[in-house]
């Protein structure tokens, strides 16, 4: 190295930030602004619009005369809406619970240095890649007692086998759960697998040295360490449960009767097929409130935690 010569600086002795520097300072905000503006208009603006509509008597197309809580009275006097809420409770609990349980189970199995991981992983993941517009028919057949599993079992000689949930009013919602779990559990598996791969190996070595059997290592150490993954999975699944629409339409169309009505199908049918847009908007507002109740505390805790 030779001597270091100072580069002459041409700035005046005391100058405010130059225009370029000031631009540089606001550039990040300028870059973010379009996205944020879009979100403001197309998410929050539209939410406000929906809220407004729920106070009108809109039917086939939006009208803008306020009539108060009429749509909400109508909504809460609909047995269908209660059915939808009840179904969402059943579906939500089972769907989230089973997806997490099965996803975690497969992830743990996959994490045992499996030879064919590269083959198995896409098999568990692929349902997420397919829309129910695509797989709906196959599922309908499969669950249909006259065509699918039941018939196959009968053909194989197991005459007493019965699997008629799809057409059974009390059980139909569970077929929706089955198909839903089939679709999403692989994705949850991938999340858990990523979580497992991210755990510090030394912790496990330490536990092994402490003499903990494999089951205990998982139960006492690894699974508690996966807490953030559980949380993420819960959020992802919760919003998918609330938004589930294709799933129900493809499998049961909301039937038999209204046995598989969910808030999302309710909202769609009241807004678009039944020409009761105000009631549909009221149900959308209810759904948004439900989502907010789940998401906002999560967001709050997540964003606060990270910067301490």
């Amino acid at each position, binding site marked *: *190295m030779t001597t*270091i010569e100072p580069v002459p600086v041409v700035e005046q002795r005391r100058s405010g930030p130059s225009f370029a*520097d000031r631009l540089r300072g606001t550039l990040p905000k300028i870059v973010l602004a379009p996205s944020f503006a879009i979100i403001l208009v197309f998410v929050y603006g539209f939410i406000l619009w929906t809220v407004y509509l729920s106070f009108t008597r809109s039917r086939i197309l939006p009208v803008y005369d306020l009539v108060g809580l009429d749509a909400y009275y109508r909504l809460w006097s609909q047995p269908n809406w209660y059915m939808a809420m009840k179904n969402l409770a059943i579906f939500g609990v089972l769907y989230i619970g089973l997806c997490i349980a099965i996803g975690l189970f497969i992830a743990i199995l996959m994490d045992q240095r499996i030879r064919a991981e590269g083959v198995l992983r896409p098999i568990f993941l692929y349902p997420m890649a397919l829309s129910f517009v695509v797989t709906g028919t196959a599922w309908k057949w499969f669950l249909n007692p006259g065509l699918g599993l039941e018939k196959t079992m009968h053909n194989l000689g197991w005459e007493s086998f019965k699997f008629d949930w799809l057409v059974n009013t009390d059980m139909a919602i569970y077929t929706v759960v089955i198909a839903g779990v089939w679709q999403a559990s692989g994705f949850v598996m991938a999340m858990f697998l990523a979580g497992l791969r991210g755990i510090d190996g030394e912790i496990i070595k330490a536990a092994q040295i402490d003499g903990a059997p494999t089951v205990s290592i998982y139960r006492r150490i690894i699974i508690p360490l996966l807490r953030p993954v559980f949380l993420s999975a819960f959020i992802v699944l919760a919003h998918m449960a609330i938004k589930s629409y294709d799933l129900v339409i493809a499998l049961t169309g909301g039937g038999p009767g209204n046995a598989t009505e969910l808030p999302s199908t309710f909202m769609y049918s009241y807004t678009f097929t039944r020409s009761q847009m105000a009631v549909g908007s009221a149900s959308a507002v209810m759904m948004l409130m439900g989502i907010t109740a789940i998401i906002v505390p999560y967001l709050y805790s997540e964003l606060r935690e990270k910067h301490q």
Partner: protein
Amino acid sequence: MSFLQIKNLRKKIGNAEVLKGIDIELEKGGFLVLVGPSGCGKSTLLNAIAGLLPLTSGDIVIDGHVVNDLHPSKRDIAMVFQSYALYPNMTVEENIAFALEMRGVDKSARAEAVKSVAKTLQIEHLLKRRPSQLSGGQRQRVAMGRALVRQPRVFLFDEPLSNLDAKLRVEVRAEIKALHQNTNATIVYVTHDQIEAMTLATKIVVLKEGTVQQVGTPAEIYNHPANLFVADFMGSPAMNMLKGKVVSSDGASRIVLFGDDVTIAIPPSVSAALPQGKEVIVGLRPEAISDAGLADPQARSIAHIDADVTMVEPTGSDTFVTGRLHGMSFTARTRADVHVAPGQKFPFAFNLDKAVVFDPESGERID
């Protein structure tokens, strides 16, 4: 005239004031080390100099120009980061050349500069590799190369050695020192390691909670710490802090240590008059306490004290002996082959020439 001036610099982050009016000056070619415990604001100060953090108030002047509002890239500085901050997607060569490329230096000149830096740092064989393929020491060199190639007016180092193992740290430390001597670059260097500070600096700034505790050469800082904090922070093992009390008899003041057992003269570093009965703290570096036989023959005042030995720590070059008297412990640096075991009595010699006295209430040194 000083090359780098920091004038009454303040920085607030949220409601907390992280830097509370810092004043520092550094001459051209100086090696300034900012040292202090974590959270003292040293990295904040360095980032402020770099322009990576906006100031709340105060000025930063480089070579006579206020650079407060200048973008980092226009301040003509280079920075070496603790994590090295090598661009993972670029080869070593590209990493080093990146700053030149950003400045529009043409390709052949870039190659030339990279080559010269690589030669200086002996990393020519690494130029085509990516950071992930390098060892810690190699990455460190590349990070330095990235700074050197720019030939900036000021180099900023942010704890550059803390990710290296002990042996490498010493080696690289020496290299940085040599580099400074060869290039006569102006350097601001942040560390929490007081040995690095002592070995590298021409000027040390000790920081605590956003305020400058002391500015001085390594010798000044070490021998004449401005306050208890600096005294305690600099030096390992830490300076012995002995509680004492001023007694006056016959018109002369003396200090009583270890209860009433030992009375010593007021150390020569103190010129002020100490009132009778004043509580003081006498600071004495471990090397100022030794076994009686090794006491500095040129010292003007030496106190000989016998005390119980509670611990013996051989380091190879020296042996640290911890003694205890009247419930007060102190550490002495003795020669390596001293024969002593815990539980024995040992004759210590206190070289009071080196003693400094602090006011226990303000923590300041009493001159």
